[in-house]
């Protein structure tokens, strides 16, 4: 569902906006209020070239406090994290970080996490790795793995249970 379908009757959510702004201040030293809608971010946005993401509109909706409308829209999951908006913003704000905050907020409020993110997180919790090392094929058609390439086993957490407990405790906290 696009954002515009949802915002017509919306009420600003000031508390959540404050929470997101506090987080940006703490993690990135950014003040999202400084955005004046020049849309330089959107003009360079890598996702905008193929998808419908318009970073300056995200900034405008944040300023209006229309958070749940963004939370419930899949548009926040189209950012490619290319960091161009952050690099080029004349006001030193970063839609990429706002989108990151919105996605984290969406997950924490229980939306269905899209794509393979749940699998990736599960793998990190159970292995400490994004995935087990995969086999690959050489151009003569033979199959290679770390051992046959002389790389030895991949470095991995010594005690996965300890890692899982540490991650579980940190993951439920707020920034």
């Amino acid at each position: 569902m696009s954002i515009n379908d949802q915002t017509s009757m919306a009420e600003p959510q000031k508390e959540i906006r404050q929470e997101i702004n506090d987080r940006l201040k703490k993690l990135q030293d950014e003040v999202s209020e400084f955005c004046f809608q020049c849309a330089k971010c959107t003009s360079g946005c890598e996702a905008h070239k193929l998808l419908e993401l318009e970073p300056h509109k995200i900034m405008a909706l944040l300023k209006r406090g229309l958070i749940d409308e963004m939370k419930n829209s899949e548009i926040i999951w189209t950012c490619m994290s290319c960091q161009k908006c952050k690099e080029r913003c004349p006001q030193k704000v970063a839609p990429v970080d706002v989108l990151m905050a919105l996605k984290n907020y969406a997950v924490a409020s229980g939306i269905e996490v899209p794509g393979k993110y749940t699998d990736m997180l599960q793998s990190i919790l159970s292995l400490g790795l994004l995935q087990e090392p995969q086999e690959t094929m050489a151009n003569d058609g033979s199959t290679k793995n770390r051992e046959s390439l002389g790389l030895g086993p991949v470095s991995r957490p010594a005690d996965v249970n300890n890692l899982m407990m540490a991650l579980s405790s940190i993951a439920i906290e707020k920034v």
Partner: protein
Amino acid sequence: MAAREILPVLGVDAVYPEDFSCCGEHVKSVNQLITLYLSARNMAVCEKNGLENIYVPCSDCHLALSETKRVLNGSAELKERINTALASENLKYTGAVTLYHTLDLLHDYIGVEKIKSLVKKPFNGITVATHYGCKTIRPTEVGRPDNAENPQKMEKILTAIGVNTQPYPEKLDCCGASLLANLPETPLTKTGQKLKAIAEQGFAAMVDACPWCHKMYDSKQAKALETVASKSAVPVVNLLQIVGIALGIDKEKLGLNLNSSPAEKIAAEVTAS
């Protein structure tokens, strides 16, 4: 593989500690605290092993670690919270480690002149397109290995080994790999568009400095070209591989036979000695 071969040739001692984990960059969208914890954890593992310098060949990992350093240096409270959780793994993060990306290592630490002096098989002046990777050069605020809008370190390294470069309109374009988790078709189109543009401009190859981008341009090249209806395969090599060839390292040791693109063509472009 290529990194492990090149480091001893350049006179860098490398050790490979146990106990590393994922850096967490790819789950930052889900929960950024997990990324901060995992990145701090990897640096703490190095601290525990008495290592002061980490060479991080992957731009995504390098950004995750750099950003974590920046955030934890700026917030004593967050650092304390991360360290409380790290204590359950008998680890402690102080922030004492220095990070090196491939560009830092080759251009700043080793130096272009030294690389030039070690070249055994100089290239014959082929012209390649360079691809730095978004996270290699942005955001400047976090401290990146090269300039965000006009990166030049790769061009200087390549010049030293007899390879020419030339600016092209799509140089800073993104491969889109960050969307592989939830919108896998989009990155293939992004990747295909850039490869098509490079082929159209007659470059002999593409040289990348980010393993995650490399996966898109090399491993997924056939599918990416299909999405833009292009039949022109582009040889794609990582910077470490092409430098390794010039240093006289065996191409199989550099993993050139594992590239999916016709990368081995590149190895033939050295001047006959």
